[in-house]
């Protein structure tokens, strides 16, 4: 995770946000804040309420109750003023397929609340690597290209707050890397605030400075990614030559308290990072050959733990 230039100015503040569809509660009393200049990761399993929340943040869905303030103004009362300063991708990138990428952006530019020059359209197309295909109809684009175009339209009017819902879906590894770099560039160099929803948890770990995990429509946890990572022990996978022998010596030692499970020639332990070396030394001293040690503590592990726990 990289350091960010967060300041204390709240750009986005959500209080008690709730959305009900009959008896179904899609979002339940959600609370979150986003600060100027940060990349905030918005995580949750499928059906957690991420997309509903993002739609409410953009005025596409009306909340049942609660408040949304963006740039210190109520979204309900100042939607048009606020949207001039917000760029977004909501779920999959859909465009007018019978129009070219350029024409799509031209249309969106005309209703962005400010004058968008041709130069700017070309500029954003170049940023996302679509300049050469600008005049092709969008129906000829691959999903990845449409995703890039989605990012282009979100950046078109140079917004202060950019809401990105799964922006790397459908991109090839190089494309994912480029978009990550672009998000970091937008945040660090251009001081944009990025609200990033993603199911690729590694992406949040790499890009985001803070994160919010939601499940069943409610905030499970909110905080700095680094702090959240350090708040739990990591799991470490030891690959050994003789599982039975290794299990025997572990069970007779203090490491038995850390032991989680065994699977073929893998032993999994839960421990702090400083203990990894000690356990490795212990196994080797007991004539067990350790061929690999893989720490699996990560945001993904943490995320899974939180969401699984909350659904039980």
């Amino acid at each position: 995770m990289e350091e960010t230039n967060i300041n204390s100015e709240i750009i986005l503040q959500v209080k008690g946000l709730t959305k009900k569809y009959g008896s179904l509660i899609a979002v339940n009393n959600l609370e979150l804040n986003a600060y100027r200049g940060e990349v905030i990761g918005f995580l949750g399993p499928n059906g957690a309420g991420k997309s509903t929340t993002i739609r409410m943040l953009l005025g596409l869905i009306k909340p049942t109750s609660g408040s949304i303030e963006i740039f210190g103004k109520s979204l309900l009362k100042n939607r048009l003023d606020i949207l001039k300063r917000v760029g977004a991708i909501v779920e999959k990138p859909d465009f007018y397929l019978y129009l070219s990428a350029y024409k799509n952006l031209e249309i969106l530019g005309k209703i962005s609340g400010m004058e968008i020059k041709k130069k700017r359209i070309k500029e954003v197309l170049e940023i996302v690597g679509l300049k050469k295909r600008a005049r092709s109809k969008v129906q000829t684009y691959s999903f990845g290209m449409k995703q890039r175009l989605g990012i282009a339209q979100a950046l078109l009017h140079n917004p202060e707050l950019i809401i990105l819902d799964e922006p790397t879906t459908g991109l090839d590894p190089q494309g994912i890397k480029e978009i990550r770099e672009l998000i970091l560039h937008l945040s660090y160099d251009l001081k944009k605030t990025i609200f990033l929803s993603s199911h690729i948890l590694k992406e949040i770990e790499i890009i985001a400075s803070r994160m919010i995990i939601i499940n069943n429509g409610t905030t499970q946890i909110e905080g700095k990614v680094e702090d959240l990572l350090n708040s739990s022990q990591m799991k470490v996978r030891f690959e050994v030559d003789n599982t039975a022998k290794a299990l025997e010596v572990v069970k007779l030692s203090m490491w038995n308290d850390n032991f989680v499970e065994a699977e073929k020639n893998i032993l999994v332990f839960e421990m702090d990072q400083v203990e990894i070396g000690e356990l490795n030394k212990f196994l080797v001293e007991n004539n067990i050959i350790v061929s690999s040690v893989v720490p699996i503590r990560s945001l993904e592990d943490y995320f899974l733990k939180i969401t699984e726990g909350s659904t039980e």
Partner: protein
Amino acid sequence: MKNLIFIELSKIFNKKRTYISFIVIFLISSIIQTALYFQGDKYLSFATRSLSNSFEFSGNLLNGYLIGFIILQSLSAYIPFLILLVGGDLLAGEATGGTYRIMLTRPISRNNFITAKFIAGIVYTNLLLIFMMLISLGFGIMIFGTGELIVFRDKLYVFAQDDIIWRFFLSYGFVILSMTTVLSLSILFSSLVENAIGPIISTMFVIITFLIISALNIEVLDSIKPFLFTNHMSSWRNFFVNPIDISQILLSFSVLLGHILFFYFLTVIIFKRKDILS
């Protein structure tokens, strides 16, 4: 607002389905004109056979005006279905394509969005009917020349050459109003669903149901018939009688305009409350 209207027009005229209506009108007009070019005399003598004992018909009766009238009469019942191709897709097409999301996350009000759709739809309706007038009346005059227009309704009306064109213009104006009513209803249905087929079928169902109710001679239905917009859609024919029944035309005008405004405001109210889930 001006930008939004141009955007909506550009969307309409960049879709292939928009041109189906123009092609259909061109083909049907051409077929009617070709048929009448070769067998117009037979048609005319058949149409006037009951009157030939009492009247003597002379001059160029098979002229462009008669052709224009025949085509208008034949097509006016079918144009609603052509209007639906575009009207039904105006909002539902955005839902199907997922493009509500990119449009409505821009700083535009939903009210303006709907109004621009309506205005663009009305422009399309106008252009379609102007095209039909040019094809039927314009080509008719070029091919068949001019002359007096004979129209047989409850009785025989003969209109002098210099007393015809204005009647066509007003009739087309009235047909545009009728078709705008159909368009408005299809946009209303279009705001409720996420697939363009639904509004097309629903509007057709309403039109056909209203036409059936209008045709039934059941006393209990008589009280509602004057309020059915389909009952007033053929009121353009009132411009081809003498003297013109102004009160009937004004009544039809008011009913159609009332329907348009009702459908428009209902669409605005529904759409402003709509959650965009597509």
